Structures are given as C-alpha cells and as structure tokens.
C-alpha cells in the first residue's frame, strides 16, 4: 500500500496495514484495489483490504469509483445474465408455444439455446431447470384458486415467480422465500386463456436456477 500514487509498493497488504498501525496512514495500492474489484485476491489479502477500506474513507471512495468504471464481469454479472437468460428463455418458450409450426418451434428453441450457450457458456453452466409441483400440464384452474408451488432448491434460497400471458406480457410476479405463491384472481383479466409460469431461484452462494416453464388455463 502507498499514499495515493500510481506506483506499486513492494509490501503486501498485511505488511502495509501493520505499518499503518504504527507509522502513518497508508492506503491500498493499485494492484490490491484492482484485485479486489476483479475478485482475484487471496482470502487474506482481500480481508486486509476490506479491513482497510472499512475505516479509510478515501480508499473506500476510490474502490467505489473503480468498481463503477470497470465493466462488471464477475459473479454478479454472471448471475444477472443467468437470470436474464432464464427470463429470455421463458419468453422464447411462450412465443414458441404460440407458433403453429412444429419445425419452426424446434428451430427457434435450438437457436435460442445456442445463442445463450455462445454468450454465456455451455447450457449446463447457464441454468439447470428444476421441476415444479403445480400447476403443470395445461391444467384448467378457477382464477380464484391459482397457487403456484415448486420444490425447494436449497436452504435459504430466494425465489421469483413470473406468470405470463400468451403474448409474453407479465401478469404476475413476486419475490418470496417460500415455495408457494398464491396468484390473486385480479391478475387474470381474461378467462379461457393460457398462461405460462416459471420460477427463478437464487442460491445463497450466488448461483441461479430456473424452473421449467409450465402452462395452465384459468376458467
């Protein structure tokens, strides 16, 4: 660490922090600050930087500024893109089901998958669909009795359910820690229409999972 200068210091964060205890206030060096943002520091170095920026306004403000300047490329973005990818996939499924031609369905679905794989990695890295409990298989349900249920995918997972109509419009969405979500009848302004629902799970370690997309009807 060094007083804000663009040069690199020779000492490790731990050594620098020790120095700050006894001599003068030192600051996080460029490598450690960059490494903190890149999430590439060792656990010990990261802890040392954390301890410093928790007390040093100048370094904390610099960290915030650098974080803002550097494009997000770590776990957070991967998570966000996975969520976006899952939502995109759900929308594609809605559109695919609405199409009359089976061949087109397959090609659209395959195209969407290959696009996602190219953009985010292999499909297994992107999202593993997990099964839901109900409603499934195009079940017809009174609008007042629509309750979405799914299996838990991990302790303390957080979920977001989305119900879409045939045009892809979102008619209901809710964040919950539970594995059940009643949908108010007011969400269904039209009857005898198909709806599609899915749930996204966010695990405490930052991973995301998306359920399979299911159809149901309201009557």
């Amino acid at each position: 660490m060094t007083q804000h200068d663009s040069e690199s210091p020779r000492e490790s964060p731990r050594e620098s922090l020790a120095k700050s205890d006894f001599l003068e206030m030192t600051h996080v060096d460029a490598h450690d600050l960059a490494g903190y943002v890149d999430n590439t520091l060792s656990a010990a170095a990261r802890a040392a930087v954390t301890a410093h920026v928790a007390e040093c306004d100048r370094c904390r403000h610099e960290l915030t500024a650098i974080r803002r300047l550097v494009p997000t490329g770590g776990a957070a973005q991967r998570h966000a893109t996975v969520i976006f990818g899952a939502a995109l996939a759900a929308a594609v499924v809605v559109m695919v089901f609405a199409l009359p031609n089976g061949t087109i369905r397959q090609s659209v679905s395959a195209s969407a998958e290959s696009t996602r794989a190219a953009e985010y990695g292999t499909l297994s890295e992107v999202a593993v669909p997990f099964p839901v409990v109900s409603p499934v298989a195009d079940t017809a349900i009174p609008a007042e009795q629509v309750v979405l249920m799914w299996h838990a995918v991990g302790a303390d997972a957080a979920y977001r359910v989305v119900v879409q109509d045939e045009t892809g419009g979102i008619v209901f969405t809710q964040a919950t820690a539970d594995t059940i979500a009643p949908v108010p009848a007011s969400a269904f302004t039209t009857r005898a229409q198909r709806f599609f629902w899915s749930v996204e799970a966010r695990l405490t370690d930052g991973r995301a999972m998306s359920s399979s997309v299911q159809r149901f009807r309201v009557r």
Partner: protein
Amino acid sequence: MSSTLESLLAATEYPTREAAWAELVAVHSRLLLHVARDLFREHDGAMDAYAFVLERLQEDDYRRLRGFKNDGRSRFTTWLTVVARRLCLDYYRQRYGRPRGDPTTNGSAERSAARRRLMDLTAVDPELAAHLAIADRTHEPDADVRHQQLRDAVSAALSELPADDRLLLKLRFDDGLSGLEISRVLGLATPFHVFRRLNATFNRLRGSLRARGVESSAP
C-alpha cells in the same frame, strides 16, 4: 499480462518501442478516455487529462507501466484503470486544487444524518425513533449527555463488528450507495444479498446494543 504491454516492455529498439507504445495506446485509449471523462465532464478537460495520463505513463522509460506485477492479483486493465484515475486526480489537483467529492472535505452533517438513520434502524423499538427527533428540539438538561452515551454505545457496537460488516454499513449509510452498487463493490450476486446481510448485521448490532443496556434509539 496484456500482450501490448509485454511487447512494449520487451522492445529495446526505439522504432519498435514507439510502435508498441502506439499499439498500447490504441488498445487502451477507450479505457483511459472513459476514466478521464468520469472526472472531467467537459471535453477539453477530459482530453487534457487523457494527454496528462499518457505523458505520465510514458515518462522515465514507462516506469509506471513497468510497475505492473503479473502475479495474478489483478487484471492489467483494472490495474490501469486505478492508475489512470489516480493520475487524473493528480492532474485535477494540479489544475484546480482539491478534487470534487474528496472524502476529506467536510461532510459532517450528512454523516450525522446517516449515523442517525443507522441508530434508528438498529433500535429495538423503531417506533421510539421519533423521540430522538423530539429530543433534538427540546433542550433537556441531560439530553446531550444521553445522546453522547447513545452515540458511544453505537460506536462501540460498530467497532466490534467484523470488517466486512463495517464496510457494508459504511457503504450504505456513510456513502449512501444503493443495494445494486454495494453488490457490485462487494462482489455479491444481487442487491437481495446485500439487504439480507444488512438485516443480519442489524440483528448483531441490536444484540450488542442490548448487552450495553440500550433498548431503543431514544436516548
């Protein structure tokens, strides 16, 4: 390490070195301009800062660039962002004096308000928080003493928190960052994780304050 940097540092002949420098500038100009524009909103100011950064990176036989350590701690581009921003701040100080938003400038009123919010949030009975505002306006003889005692209790409780919790609270309450911004700074997957951790930290603080005999935010 960046291949452009490797080429530059490996070049021994003047023409080769100039060509390598030109290539490095071409590859990273967008990044450097992005950093300069972040601090200098006017075009001319940003371009002057950009030129200053290039000049400083070149001087003393690329001393600053040679300072990059390819030890896996950080990516070159993130490190360059940190260095370039520090050089831009040097330029700003040379030209205008103390930079905008410098954390060493007086922000005591805002900090006071932020600390008050934190005290309210950690209060056992949030409804009693209103008493704090009332007490501020009525100058009871021992009000200042009780305020100071409450502040001391909160400060002591904060100092016992782990560094990452203290950093979380600083980012939220001293710096006023949003959940999304904090998630990016700390590498958390989503803002949801930020608020979950905040809640856990509040609970720890409440417990610590109770142990000190503080039952509400009312002094």
